[in-house]
């Protein structure tokens, strides 16, 4: 295969490519070059049909932190080491008297103002730890919280979430942490994911999620970040399992989805309403689903609504 021609396919596909004179010279060097380039560009155009437009997904084998496949890579290296260190540190911190825990019940929200001017809004069903002597520390143990951070480059604000760390760079961001997944969305400034390991920069408008299927980086509308504070939940192609968890946390209702309903995806905005019957009456059809009351909770199942 023609390595040089592939190189030119990549270069000319770059939106910033400008060195067309060099490309002309390469084409002139051998009359066969143009044909090789055309054939590869045609093959490249066909890739659309075999490479789905899904968010960037990186496989990360679950339950196997000691032997991550990507360990040997320099830019990702140290992930497991950092994770191990954080684990040790948080156990140490838990025993300290200056660490305190704040928990909200499902449906309850709470705002914490830290000494440095940083504000943390806790959504329902959330547990967080803070440090009385270090306003730049926060740990999200489970649930969802929105952070409005007063930035200080010399002393960055860090949120520990499971074995991951998010470091702000002048920021408003929202984190969800459940047993199976961590999601962050950035609406202002920038957040660095695991600054000592992967160090993935997340500017405003970018989101990251980590679950069994891997690590994903995707785009997010900035006004969709932490929109639960305005009583809205906004999604782009999100699985209904995730949406159900968000609803349960925000409204304080027990909510499950049948496997079929849980696997469907939804794009749009859901308006939160404290009256469950009214809420589900409006929301379920929006998602093309049906909601039925079951004992104390609600069940989302596949409806007979219009196909989406």
């Amino acid at each position, binding site marked *: 295969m023609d390595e040089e021609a592939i190189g030119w396919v*990549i270069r000319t596909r*770059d939106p910033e490519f400008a060195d*067309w004179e060099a490309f002309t010279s390469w084409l002139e060097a051998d009359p066969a070059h*143009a044909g090789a380039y055309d054939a590869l560009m045609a*093959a490249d155009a066909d890739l659309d049909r075999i*490479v789905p437009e899904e968010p960037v997904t990186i496989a990360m084998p679950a339950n196997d932190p000691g032997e991550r496949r990507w360990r040997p890579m320099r830019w990702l290296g140290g992930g497991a080491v950092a994770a191990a260190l954080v684990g040790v540190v948080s156990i140490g911190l838990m025993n300290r008297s200056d660490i305190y825990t704040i928990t909200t019940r499902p449906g309850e929200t709470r705002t914490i103002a830290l000494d440095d001017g940083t504000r943390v809004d806790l959504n329902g069903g959330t547990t967080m730890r803070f440090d009385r002597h270090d306003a730049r520390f926060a740990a999200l143990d489970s649930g969802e919280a929105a952070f409005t951070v007063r930035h200080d480059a010399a002393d960055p604000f860090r949120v520990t979430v499971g074995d991951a760390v998010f470091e702000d760079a002048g920021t408003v961001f929202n984190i969800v942490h459940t047993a199976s997944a961590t999601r962050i969305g950035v609406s202002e400034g920038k957040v660095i994911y695991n600054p000592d390991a992967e160090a993935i920069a997340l500017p405003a408008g970018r989101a990251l999620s980590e679950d069994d299927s891997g690590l994903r980086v995707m785009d997010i509308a900035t006004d969709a970040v932490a929109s639960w504070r305005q009583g809205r939940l906004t999604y782009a192609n999100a699985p209904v399992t995730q949406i159900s968890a968000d609803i349960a946390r925000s409204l304080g209702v027990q909510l499950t989805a049948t496997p079929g309903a849980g696997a469907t995806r939804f794009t749009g905005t859901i308006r939160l309403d404290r009256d469950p019957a009214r809420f589900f009456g409006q929301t379920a059809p929006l998602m093309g689903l049906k909601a039925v009351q079951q004992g104390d909770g609600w069940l989302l199942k596949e409806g007979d609504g219009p196909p989406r």
Partner: protein
Amino acid sequence: MATGLSAILLNNRPALLRFLRARGAGDESEDLLQDMWMKLEEKDLGPIADPLPYLYRMANNLMLDRYRSAARRERREQDWAEGAGGVMADPSEDVAIDERLILTERLEEARAVLRALGPRVELIFRRFRIEGIGQRLIAEELGVSLTTVEKDLQKAYRAMIALKHKMDTE
């Protein structure tokens, strides 16, 4: 009225002609450039940040379109000669399901090939090829050098184009 892009085209006529000839347009290079000029005169595109690269890209796209339609024509003629083509295509549901299965299989295969290249190569390829982000920006985002991004892309492209060829001959 020669303003904006069409004026810039006229000013850079020799370079663009040279490019079109190198691209394989041969004797038609002059006509192609003339067509481009007419198109630019017809509609006002407003100010463009880098007009000359824009014109080169326009010319390059023109050549890519020509190549693709020529390839399609060739395929049609071949199908005709072999007695296949439209008459044979049976629009029954079985065929559609078969095609869907093959497509799903291919998507899975492509996903596996990309995954096997490693997370950074996959991430960079998707960002570049699917989301259309430039290499310089990707390097900044990931905090790696531009050379690393270039090498990863070369690796991903090599694998994906090899896969594409394999699928075509199946």
